[in-house]
């Protein structure tokens, strides 16, 4: 895959990369660093994509792995002067103004690093079987964990009913 094709692939999955970065690093400087890490990792890995799984599944795996590793690194990282490869035209859409989405991101922020991945995959309409394949756990495990997350979500948005 040459650079032009790679850029086209990144373009196609730009929202997936953005959502992973935003869920693991709401802070702008971290978001940019993580985005760079994910893109570099994807570039490094792209030549090994053999089509055995869907491209979105494959990108999810790499993006989530990079995000989890980044998230778990020791704090007080020094930020390199980075720029965004994926930019949001804020005058047309600002996720921060969408109250439900903002709350959802706040909720995701409270989850642990593995539940964050699970929630993201679920919200992106992946089937339990696909989530299980991407994460490497059983389908029943996905179902149990999702039920717990749903309860947490309910309590988060309706604490009075908890």
């Amino acid at each position, binding site marked *: 895959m040459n650079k032009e094709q790679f850029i086209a692939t990144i373009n196609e999955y730009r929202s997936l990369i953005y959502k992973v970065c935003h869920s693991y690093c709401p802070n702008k400087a971290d978001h940019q660093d993580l985005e760079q890490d994910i893109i570099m990792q994807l570039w490094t890995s792209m030549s090994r994509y053999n089509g055995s799984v869907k491209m979105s599944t494959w990108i999810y*795996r790499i993006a989530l792995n990079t995000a989890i590793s980044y998230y778990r690194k020791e704090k007080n990282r020094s930020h390199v002067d980075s720029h965004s490869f994926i930019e949001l035209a804020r005058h047309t859409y600002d996720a921060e103004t969408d109250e439900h989405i903002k709350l959802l991101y706040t909720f995701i922020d409270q989850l642990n690093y593995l539940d964050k991945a699970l929630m993201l995959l679920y919200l992106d309409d992946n089937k339990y079987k696909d989530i299980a394949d991407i994460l490497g756990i059983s389908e029943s495990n996905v179902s149990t964990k999702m039920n717990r997350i749903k309860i947490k979500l309910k309590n988060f948005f309706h604490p009075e009913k908890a």
Partner: protein
Amino acid sequence: MDINEFKSAWLQHDRKLTENLSINETLLKKVNMDRSRKELNKPLIYEIVSFFFFIILIPVFIFLAVLYRSESNMLICGILATVALVLGLVLCVKKIRLFYRIDYFNQPVIQLQERLALLKSGILSARKIEVFFLLPTLFITALVLMLRYLRGIDLFEDISFFLPLILPGLLVTIVGTVFINKYLYDKKIKNVEHLLMELKAYQQEV
């Protein structure tokens, strides 16, 4: 709002993102991404270079041990250096194997995180042995043998002259390594072990 409503809000969010996100092609084209490929391979390349370094040095020190077999001090130094080098080689092979077990592209997230944690734990444990035993042993034995071979100086003949030079350095190194070990390696190894336990629990929890 229930989960399905959140899900549809999220899918709408995804649509809006796709419509409004743009990639900075100019910046992407400008970045030398091949450099990142080399950066990511650096630790593995370092281990492969070390592997060949040990392979070359082992016969050298075996040769020196055999050459000075009649001098017990030199023979012991030769044997110790060889043992340290063989140990270094074994650790190196162990680390290279851990590197090759990582498949960033086809392994599920949790399995890959586990392998990354095992690699980190392997590297940290090996580094402890390297810092505590391998480096000081190699430094002292190589110094003794090389001085004997290249300059004909036998350090054991006038050890009282060399000891004041070597001992303070050795003392500082030992105190330093104990300190580093306590506050750096042990803490990091504990963190990695904790991560491994978390991952195992996450996989098994039903």
